[in-house]
């Protein structure tokens, strides 16, 4: 099934709020093998000027991938997930993510392209706090291999 290119430029309604806990930051930091005290110890994080333990640079992928699932998991998108290869990923942090943050992600489909049997999609998740202030932008490019 071909990619439905009419999804390009679609903007989804904001996803439910994601609440960042100290435990989740510690769990994710452990899973990437980082024992930096700023992920685990509030005092160490405060010594660096953060209000609470700080998330690793790629932590926002948890929030982004949940949000992207609205699109990549939608049968109407035409994406065969068994043929998906992750092409590129980019994080822009407008400020660090810390425990206690209440994050509101919004999914944008920037590009959907079908060429030579292969497909390419670029999604962008804009993550803000509940006041609407920008926290992070996560851009992801997926390649859908042809049959």
């Amino acid at each position, binding site marked *: 099934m071909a990619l439905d290119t009419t999804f390009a430029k679609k903007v989804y309604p904001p996803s439910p709020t994601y609440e960042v806990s100290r435990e989740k930051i510690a*769990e*994710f930091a*452990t*899973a*990437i*093998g*980082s024992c*930096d*005290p*700023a*992920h685990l110890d509030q005092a*160490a*994080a405060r*010594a*660096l000027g*953060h209000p609470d333990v*700080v*998330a*690793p*640079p*790629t932590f926002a*992928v*948890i929030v982004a*991938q*949940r949000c992207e699932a609205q699109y990549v998991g939608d049968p109407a998108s035409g994406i065969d*997930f*068994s*043929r998906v*290869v*992750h*092409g*590129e*990923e*980019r*994080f*822009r*942090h407008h400020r*660090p993510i*810390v425990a206690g943050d209440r994050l509101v992600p919004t999914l944008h489909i920037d590009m959907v392209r079908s060429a030579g049997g292969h497909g390419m999609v670029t999604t962008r998740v804009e993550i803000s706090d509940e006041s609407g202030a920008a926290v992070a932008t996560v*851009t992801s490019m997926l390649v859908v291999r042809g049959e």
Partner: protein
Amino acid sequence: MSESGRPSRPTFDAVQVGDLLPGRDFALLREDLVRYAGASGDLNPIHWNARVATEVGLPDVIAHGMLTMATAARVVTDWCGDPGAVIEYGTRFTSTVPVPDDGVGARVTVSGTVASRDEQARTVRVDLVATCRGERVLGKAQAVVRLP
């Protein structure tokens, strides 16, 4: 070591273009993939189930690209001393990291170089090279770091 027990953090003024970050070898075992799958919520079976991985044409279970990306970032955060100082980080995924179930797993070698400095923002761009079995697994991996 500073009072907080950290090695002293590099300052913007002390860092020069061409400086090498301390590189490292990282071992990735099957259990690391399972732990990352659980923590990240990415349960794609190609990262833990060899039957599914080989059915879709992969040589073996492969590491999550995002785990390789996160692992490479540790070279940057360990160097700059503040994981919250990485304001931008991007990469392409150029090759897979097969992780055999042999108790040894995969070895990913990561090095980093200061590629540019922005005087006004007091940030530096670090270019990372990550290889596994002699192949580059990340392409154009770059992190922008704000330094004190």
